[in-house]
Each structure stands twice: as C-alpha cells, then as structure tokens.
C-alpha cells in the first residue's frame, strides 16, 4: 500500500514541534479519518494497473481503436486510389522503406493486381474488423448471459433442455456452420457477418454463466431476496448477475479476439465481408496467388495487425482475470 501511506513526522522530536507543525499533523489525521474505503471496482482498477502486460495490452488495443477511428479521416487517398499509377507493376510494389525511397506513400507497399495501398487497407480494415468483433461479442454475451442465467437459476427440466440445446450448438463445428451460413444468408455484408458470429457464438458464455448461477443461487442473499418477495427476473438481473459479472467480462474480452480471428478467417476464404469493404481478413484473400513472386508485404501487414491486436486483447483479458478476482493479491 505504498500510495496509501500517510506522512509521519516521526523524524523530529515531539518537543521541537511548533504549533503550526502540530496543526499540520492534525490535518493529516483528519484526512486519514475521512479516507473512504475503495469499492470493488476501484480495487480491481488498482490491481489492473499493476499488471504490466495488461496495461501494455490495453494500450495496444486502445491504440488500434484510435488508429481505426482517426487515421482514415486524414488519409489523402481512398481504398481505390492507386498511389502512383504511372508505374504499372502487376505484382505490386514493395514498401517504400524497403527500396530506400522513404516516400510517405507506399508505407506498407501495394497489393498485386489492383495495386491498392496496403497501409490504407490495413487502417480501413481495422475499422470494420474491430467493429464487427465488438458488436458480435456484445450480441453473443447478451444472449449467452440470459440463456445461461435462466437455465442456471431455474434448473430442473428447463435447465436440462436448454443445456442440451447448447450441447448441440457446440457440437456443430462452428466454423463449418459459419461458412455455410455466410455463404447462404447473404455473404458480403458486414452486418450479416456480425449477426452470424453473434448469434452462433454464445454457447460457451451461456455454460459459464449457468455454472456461476448454479453456485450463486444457493447463497443466503438469494434466499433472503426470495423471502422478501423479490421477483425472479429481479433476482436474476439485480442480485445474482452482478456477482457473476467478472468471469463474464473476462470471457467477453477474450471473445473479441476470437471473433477478430474468426472473421478474418471467414473473410479470407471469401465467405465473409466483401472485398469492397476492407477488413483484415479479406485484404489477405488473394495474396496467396502472389506469394510465389515474393510479394511478402501484402499478407504480412494485415496479418501482423491481427496478431498485435489479438495479443493485446489476450494480455488485457488475463490482466482483467487477475484484477477482478477478489482473492488475488496483486
């Protein structure tokens, strides 16, 4: 508790204290008495700040979000602009720094065939990739929490039926289903991709929430609430849910990373978002054709953006897990 230590005047003998000094000591004592205890979230924040990797990770993630929001506004050219159309090179040109010219254009080279600027694609791709992952996670967390909460709270036959349905959903190979669904339910549109990930990805979270509810519903405070006549819905959402929030937050964080990779994968295979709206995945989609011509910069930068972001989110999630656990003394 280094920051909570109160200043002491123990160095000087008491007899030499002036009235002013005494007054100052009184003040610190008053301050000490008024100090409020930290609530659960403040404690968690303090633990989180001490987790160095988690801070770095959130920095990376927030940095990516900032880049996605701000940088496309200032780009002097759009996704379809060819930076220097006088030199037609079918396989695309390498980054400017690799050829030693250091021009502000072609920071990350350009793609083959259509010769689109990779930097521009990565930056614009960040927008859609992050938006899809956050929205889809929100949807799946909402569904999963309600589904798992209801199953865990009521238990019995309802619980059995609901969890068998989750079993079945989790038994289907999710990526196969997503491939088929996005092929058939109108692929190309980012909204439908978001919905597909959101509506199919809640199985894991609902299991987690259910297990939380199973233990928490036996607690005395739930009995007390029920004895006072609180409705079931209120017990679920106001009494039990806040107590099972931390694992949900952690798993939601990690699920964002999962959706980023999943979306990139689906779009890479051509079943996800259409190439007219760049995401990190679909930017990569034709790069394999040009790999044999040494066109490394095209796949490298969008993929590196994915790795960096996912790494950041995973660090953040681990930090949150430690910080939100009231037993951890970090």
């Amino acid at each position, binding site marked *: 508790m280094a920051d909570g230590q109160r200043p002491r005047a123990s160095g000087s003998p008491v007899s030499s204290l002036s009235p002013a000094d005494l007054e100052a000591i009184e003040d610190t004592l008053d301050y000490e008495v008024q100090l409020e205890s930290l609530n659960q979230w403040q404690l968690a924040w303090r633990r989180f700040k001490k987790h160095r990797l988690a801070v770095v990770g959130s920095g990376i993630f927030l940095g990516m979000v900032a880049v996605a929001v701000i940088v496309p506004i200032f780009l002097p050219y759009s996704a379809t602009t060819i930076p220097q159309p006088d030199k037609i090179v079918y396989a695309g040109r390498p980054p400017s720094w690799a050829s030693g010219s250091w021009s502000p254009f072609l920071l990350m080279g350009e793609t083959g065939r259509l010769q689109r600027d990779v930097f521009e694609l990565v930056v614009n791709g960040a927008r859609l990739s992050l938006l899809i992952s956050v929205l889809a996670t929100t949807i799946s967390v909402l569904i999963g929490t309600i589904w798992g909460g209801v199953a865990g709270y009521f238990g019995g036959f309802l619980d059995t039926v609901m969890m*068998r*349905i989750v*079993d*079945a*959903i*989790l*038994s*289907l*190979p999710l*990526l*196969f*289903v997503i*491939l*088929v*669904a996005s*092929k*058939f339910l109108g692929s190309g549109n980012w909204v439908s991709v978001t919905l597909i990930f959101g509506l199919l990805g809640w199985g894991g979270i609902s299991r987690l929430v259910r297990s939380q509810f199973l233990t928490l519903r036996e607690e005395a405070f739930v009995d007390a609430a029920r004895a006072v006549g609180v409705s079931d819905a209120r017990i679920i959402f106001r009494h039990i849910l806040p107590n099972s929030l931390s694992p949900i937050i952690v798993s939601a964080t990690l699920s964002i*990373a999962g959706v980023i*990779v999943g979306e*990139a*994968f689906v779009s*890479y*295979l051509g*079943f996800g978002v259409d190439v007219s709206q760049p995401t990190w995945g679909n930017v*990569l989609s034709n*790069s*394999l054709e040009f*790999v*044999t*011509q*040494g*066109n*490394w910069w095209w*796949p*490298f930068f969008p*993929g590196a953006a*994915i*790795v*960096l972001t*996912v*790494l950041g989110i*995973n*660090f953040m999630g681990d930090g949150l897990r430690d910080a939100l656990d009231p037993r951890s003394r970090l």
Partner: protein
Amino acid sequence: MSRYIVRRVIGAIPVLFFISFMIYGILLIAPGGPEARFAQNPKITAAQIEAFRKRWGLDQPLPVQYCRWLGACNPDHTGLAVFISDQGLPNVLPSFIGGGDNGILHGDLGFSIRDGRPVTIVIGERIIPTVILAGTAWVIWLTVALLAGMYAAVRRYGLFDSALTIGSYIGLALPTFWLGIMLLTIFASGLKWFPAGGMWSARDVPIFGSPEYWAFAGQQPLTALFDLGTHLVLPVFTLVVVSIAGDSRFVRAAMLDSLGQDYVRTARAKGVSERRVVMKHAFRNALLPIVTNIGLEIPFLFTGAIVTETIFSWPGMGRLAIEATNSFDYPVLMGIFLIAALLTVFANLVADILYAIVDPRISYG
C-alpha cells in the same frame, strides 16, 4: 458406474437428434438446392424438373422428406405405411434384420451433386490424407506440449517457463492462415526448401490413393515417403505451432496443480528423489485432466483443419468442406457436418466416462 455410462449414452441421443434437425434446417433454408443446376440449362423443361423433383421426393412435405433422410420412413410407401420397410418390419431397423436401407441411420448419405458419386465414397477418399496430416501434427504437438509443459511446471518462473509463456501468447494470437501464408512466402517461394502445396509431386509420383500410387510406393518406398514428407513439413509445422500453445499451457497448469498437492510434499519429505516425485507422483495425477483434454481433440483428427488444408492444397476433409460449400453440394456438406458432430458428441462422451473411471472422486450417481 455402468448406470452412469448408460445414462450418459441415453442423454446423448436427444442431442444427436437435435443436431440432425439443425443440419437439415440449415441446409434447407440455403439457396441453390438440388435442381439449381438446371436453371442455366435451356434444354430442360419445367416438366422434366417436375419429374426430377418427384423422382427424388422433393415434392413431399418437409416432415416426410426429413423422415426419409433420417431413414425412419420408407420412400416407396405412402400414408401410414411409410414407417414399414419393404420386408414388412419397421423401417428404422437395420436392413439385415428386416429394416429399410435408406437414410442416414442406415449409412446412406445420398449422392454428391457435383459428381454424382455416393457421399460415403467422396468423404471416404478424403479421410486418409486428413488422418495423415492431422495425425502427424497431433503426435508431434502432443509430445512437445507434454515435455514442454512438464519442464515449465517443474522449473516454474524459470527462463524456459517465461519463454514458453511468451511463446504460447504469440502462438494463441497467430491466425493459422496467416502463419501458413508467411511460411509459404519464406520457405516455399523465397528459400525454395519445400513444395508450395499439394500432397505429392505430380511430376514424379502417381496420384495419391490410386492403385498406381500404392504400386509405386511398393517399388520405391523411400522416394514415396520422402516425397510425402517434404509436402508434410510446412502444413504440419503450421498446425503444431498454433496448437501447441494451448496444450502446453494446459499441461503446465495440470502439473502445477498436482505438484502443489499434499502427497507431493509428503513424498519429498520422505526423501523420494525429485525425478521419482515428478514422474511417479505428480505426473501420474496430472494425467487425469490431460487425458480428458486429449479425448476432446479426437474429432479434429478426422474433420481436419480447414485453413491449413486450403492454404497448402491438401486433399483432405477440411478442403472438401470448402469445395462443397462453394459448389452448393448439400449432400456432401451434410455428410461432413454429421460426421463432425457425431465425433464431437462421441469424444465428449468418452472424455466424461474416462474421467469418471480414472477419477474416483467424481460422483456419478
């Protein structure tokens, strides 16, 4: 114990039923469909399409179609007699004791729309390449993950442990397709050490799985094996790198858990050698969760890795799924779905039962 197993098996039946329902539903709402291939053909008349629909039962109401697909209904009969097979017994029964021979319950997955062959044959010829690729990768990553996880747990917070932690963070963040593309860029197109994809060198070796291939493999086993090996290196490496991260963390956690137990402290206090403590006392008990985890990885061996197989043009199940999706080949897709889901349910069942057998603390009343 046997009661527990029976209950688990019975509990899996509604799940399987629901899965079959969902698979049927997903592919039902999909566009395209069996007669889509006639849409572009000007020589086919509406009457012919109608005859085609009647021939394949597409004019029937949906429950009947589902029931026939499942194998509980006999397509040759109408009315209430649909549940009776040609031999006069309920159609659900296996055909050798008098049931029908249609539907997935009797192993009839229909015909591929793309090339007209039975789905079982189309899928069957893709299973061996997938097992070769996924199996090789699985054995390697399991061995490495076991050794690395154990060593990291024994030397906790040591140099190796920290390196493994950082490595597995990166491994978990690496998208398979990106790793594959970068490996191809570096080792196939840049350094030219390995072939850029496929399963055999078409110039030197006959098509894999054909009789000529096996004859060739019999005459020059070393050439065939070496050729297969060079094609395996990059995809196997890709799979190992992305899979090892999670598994080694799992082994490490399981080992740390059992190293912290009282009986380990007791063994040490009695003066048992450290090697014996780790191998006999800690590792044996850490195996419990590890075995369960391994059981859950079994479906992967057969359904394969979609991305890795696509990028390295490996002729396996994963790539078949992509091809079938692209060409609206419903029967093949349904077959793959079904096999994958069956294996997942089966693996879950096996893991649960194994866990109950090896861990006497689990109550299975």
